[in-house]
């Protein structure tokens, strides 16, 4: 498993810069959480009380918002994040088989990371590639007409 990094002074400094850049926005919390996750790869538990205080909301509210959305994670992901679409249009093109293959060959359930820290497996519901499914997203890169061969190649590259 990937070890949780330390949230020290340098990280606090970065967090305060994010807050300074975003706190003036109407409804600043989501932009702030996105920026924090973009910077650190996840939303560190240490960041939430700081964000809450800055926006004058309770810790419970900050936690409630962060945990409501599928995108935000409370621990680091693997070096590669593999998202596979499970929505109807991709199912019509055999996404279920692809999903089974990914889960079996990686021995992972959703949101889990391989022991070597190489790959995190996520499900996603629609990438808007519904006329060229099954679809995947690998570290933000879109893949259409995905099949077992493409998937195996992506996994092999992520592990190399």
């Amino acid at each position, binding site marked *: 498993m990937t070890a949780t990094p330390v949230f020290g002074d340098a990280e606090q400094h970065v967090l305060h810069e994010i807050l300074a850049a975003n706190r003036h926005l109407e409804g600043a919390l*989501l932009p702030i959480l996105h920026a924090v996750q973009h910077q650190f790869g996840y939303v560190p538990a240490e960041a939430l009380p700081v964000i809450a205080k800055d926006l004058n909301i309770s810790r419970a509210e900050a936690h409630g918002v962060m945990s409501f*959305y*599928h995108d935000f994670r409370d621990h680091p992901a693997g070096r590669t994040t593999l998202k596979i679409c499970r*929505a109807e249009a991709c199912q019509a*093109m055999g996404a279920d088989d692809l999903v089974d293959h990914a889960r079996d060959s990686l021995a992972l359930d959703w949101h889990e990371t391989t022991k070597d820290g190489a790959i995190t497996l996520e499900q996603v*519901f629609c990438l*808007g590639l*519904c006329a060229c*499914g099954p679809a995947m997203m690998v570290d933000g890169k879109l893949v259409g007409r995905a099949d077992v061969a493409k998937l195996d190649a992506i996994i092999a590259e992520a592990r190399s």
Partner: protein
Amino acid sequence: MSMKMYLPLDSAAVALGADDVAAAIAARFPEATLVRNGSRGMVWLEPLLEVEIDGVRHGFGPFETTDIDALSGDLANHPKALGPVDDLPWMQRQTRLTFARVGVIDPLSLDDYRAHGGVTGLERALSMTPAEIVTETTDSGLRGRGGAGFPTGIKWKTVMEAQADQKYIVCNADEGDSGTFADRMLMEGDPFTLIEGMVIAGIATGATKGYVYLRSEYPIAIEVMNKAVAIARQQGLLGASILGSAHAFDMEIRVGAGAYVCGEETSLLNSMEGKRGVVRAKPPLPALEGFMGKPTVVNNVISLATVPVIFERGAQFYQDFGLGRSRGTIPLQIAGNVKHGGLFEIAFGLPLGEIVDDIAGGTASGRPVKAVQVGGPLGAYFPRDLFDTPFGYEEFAGKKGLIGHAGLTLFDDQQDMLKMARFAMEFCAIESCGKCTPCRIGSVRGVETVDRIAQGDASAIPLLTDLCETMKDGSLCALGGFTPYPVMSALTHFPDDFATTAQEAAE
């Protein structure tokens, strides 16, 4: 000779290798101009390369890097040659109003946009009073393209008449429905159309600030929209004085965070305010108490992006297209197990079967079409018996379905419809915001109940029907309220998939 070529930056083209092709073309033909355009909508031909020959754009696709060398030879005999793109049957049969420029222009060139009719609608709107703009919108017959079908002009009128120190235009670009990608294609291929539509909405209602709530699953659309907003601001299409007028309007892009329910307008507003994306009870209507409690227009991408053409060509021109109370054109998105999938814009009224068999050419697998889910995960599964249904809001409602955002997902005869009913309940359970009981608990019970049917317990069928009634009548929003559509349509139209399993277990 300097060649001019076009290759889409559209997500579907990129997912099929367009970026690799673009890099290889730039290396092989460094003197050529390569425009990264939107997609023409023929996804089965993506990446679709277009080469301008004597002023006519010729298509080559699906284009791979190995096809580049042959571009130096006789283009008419290129193995991927399709001929002039505008002459292809898929293009010829359409009425492209909202998508007129998508795939044609450079999405980030305001000059290109103007040269193809852009900004004309806004210029006309600037010469009108807010009340006249609202009337023109109402007269066009434009209804909410997000799925609800509420008349756009009526919504604008409510916001126009509301008194407040601040009003907002919010564009719902949280296009989470599987089988739909029109919003994405529009934003990637012609972002200024959406911006222009929002500016006109702002002038009509007195709103000076706009937001696009764009889902995080659309990274390319986010990038294109952000760049387009910056260009529009720089060139006076946004800002303190729109095109030199007394009207002010500015906007920004907000990124969602993977919650399907945020496509529902009130949970979208909560999300934008930095809250959990839970649904709000209505009333109050967002038109009166929306974003930050202020009067807010919440419109879908396609509704807003259709406004410029209505003002360019006139309300009467637009409303002359269509069927019954469904006026104008609708960008159909044809998806799933489909031979010719993509975006096809045409007047309302085409029978479902003509879309599926004729335009889409049936399935990719070549097997018979078993079902078409229309309107996304909350839409009904239509069997072939209902393929005579004309494409329109009321016509689909009359068949216990909905057109939603006009996505059509095809399934072949190997699809198990009980499995799809189970998935509808599972999806609802994953995405429920938790606010109302029928959705939060009913969805989980629904999965269990479908599993009981699958295990041969026929007594669970009336229970599932009853549960669907409760969810439909008692849910606060369309997520819990419409999940019964796919479930009940699967059960009603494909009873064999539910009965066979029961029978097998009994044997």
